[in-house]
């Protein structure tokens, strides 16, 4: 547990959800989101069950609601787009007196709003209860091709390094009288981005050399996966089963 410097989405804790094996949580997330996406938008009651499941899990993980909601706001830009649909939708219109809205557009907006929010909520929950390195390990245990997990791992590893280089470059520019304001800063910043790309590329080369120096021959060795963990699929899958049962019922009824 690298509690001291966890990433911004992580909420340190020891709840059953924190301790659950990452592969179980990942599989649960995917299955939950699938159930949400496959539910017909008219089955409003089904979505309240999904929301209840999420709220219950946030409670089990003892994540403060404020922490959860601020992270959830990441889906706002996507949801804003949905608000436009009722105004520009085709077909029969619903008259609210002062404005008239497309009923198909309303349904589409609701569909995007509720599914995006539930999906984002489930993802925030995973991120809040799982360290990044554990997510990578979980993906590997779910037999995701090692090339993909390796790319993700490198990206996470070097994001901070590259962001730090970018920050230093900007400070260096400011220190020499460069005044960043929106339009004016584009030119020099683009140059800096180009330089940053070259530096990242060169770093990639050095990392590759460091890998070869330790016997890398193009294939990632099995990672150290022997940490004790209790993989209990069934208790973890209970929320997913409820979600799927809800989705099947909603599909049959509507």
């Amino acid at each position, binding site marked *: 547990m*690298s509690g001291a410097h966890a990433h911004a989405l992580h909420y340190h804790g020891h709840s059953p959800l924190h301790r659950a094996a990452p592969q179980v949580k990942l599989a649960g997330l995917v299955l939950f989101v699938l159930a949400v996406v496959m539910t017909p938008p008219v089955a409003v009651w089904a979505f309240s069950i999904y929301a209840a499941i999420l709220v219950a899990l946030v409670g089990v993980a003892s994540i403060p609601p404020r922490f959860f909601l601020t992270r959830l706001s990441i889906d706002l830009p996507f949801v804003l787009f949905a608000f436009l649909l009722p105004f520009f939708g085709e077909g029969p219109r619903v008259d609210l007196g002062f404005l008239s809205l497309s009923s198909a557009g309303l349904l589409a907006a609701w569909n995007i709003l509720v599914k995006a929010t539930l999906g984002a909520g489930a993802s925030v929950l995973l991120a809040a209860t799982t360290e990044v390195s554990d997510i990578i390990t979980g993906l590997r245990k779910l037999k995701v091709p090692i090339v993909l997990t390796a790319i993700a791992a490198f990206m996470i590893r070097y994001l901070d390094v590259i962001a730090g280089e970018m920050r230093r470059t900007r400070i260096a520019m400011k220190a020499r009288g460069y005044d960043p304001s929106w339009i004016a800063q584009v030119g020099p910043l683009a140059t800096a981005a180009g330089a940053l790309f070259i530096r990242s590329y060169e770093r990639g080369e050095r990392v590759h050399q460091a890998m070869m120096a330790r016997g890398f021959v193009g294939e990632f060795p099995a*990672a150290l996966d022997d940490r004790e963990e209790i993989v209990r699929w069934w208790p973890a899958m209970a929320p997913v089963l409820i979600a799927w049962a809800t989705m099947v019922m909603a599909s049959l009824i509507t």
Partner: protein
Amino acid sequence: MKALAVSGLTFAYPDGTRAVNGVDLDIEIGERVAVLGPNGAGKTSLLLLLIGVLEAQAGSIEIGGLRLGPDNLGEIRRRLGLVFQDPDDQLFMPTVEQDVGFGPANLGLRGPELRARVTEALEAVGEADLAERAPHHLSGGERRRVSIATVLAMNPEILVLDEPTSNLDPAGRRELVGLLGGLDASQVVVTHDLPFALELCPRAVILDGGRVVADGPTAELMADRELMNSHRLELPYGFDPANIRRR
């Protein structure tokens, strides 16, 4: 048998720059040797040649009696552990223990054997507590020691360090002297930090223009002002190697 035997090593980059120009260097088992030289002397190229990342145009490299060739790169890289200058290049896995396990896993170790090797290497550098941390969340000194652990985990016969004191504070630097001084493996330390070289390595070679221009006891080389100055090697202000008592 020598820990390292380099003879007539020559390498030029595609643009024609002769980075290494006929280097001869023998290192005995258990010996610690500093490689000194100005920027552009060919030090880093020499290191990349030693692990077979660059391919020499002429000359030979033997590590523990095994001659480097395309067929035995794996064994060569096990015998010679290279610690890169920037720990951010050296540490690329999501957690410290996975990073330390990377080398031995490439050697085919698995399960409890791999775990034991990782623990042993981290304990050797005094950082067993960091096993599950992410490398980018460590301090400079911790990164340096973990970098050394990643190489120790491969049980190298010879340890090669590129600028090990760069970006370390004086306390971190002193701890590093203690750590490296306590290891049994032969060591080649490439450094601009002359007091560090003097403290750690009884013998030094000066590399300039891709050649070995001097080879001898570190204190004697450093006392030779003319030699040092002619290769842009300058001792820190007020530092006189003659006043240092050998440990």
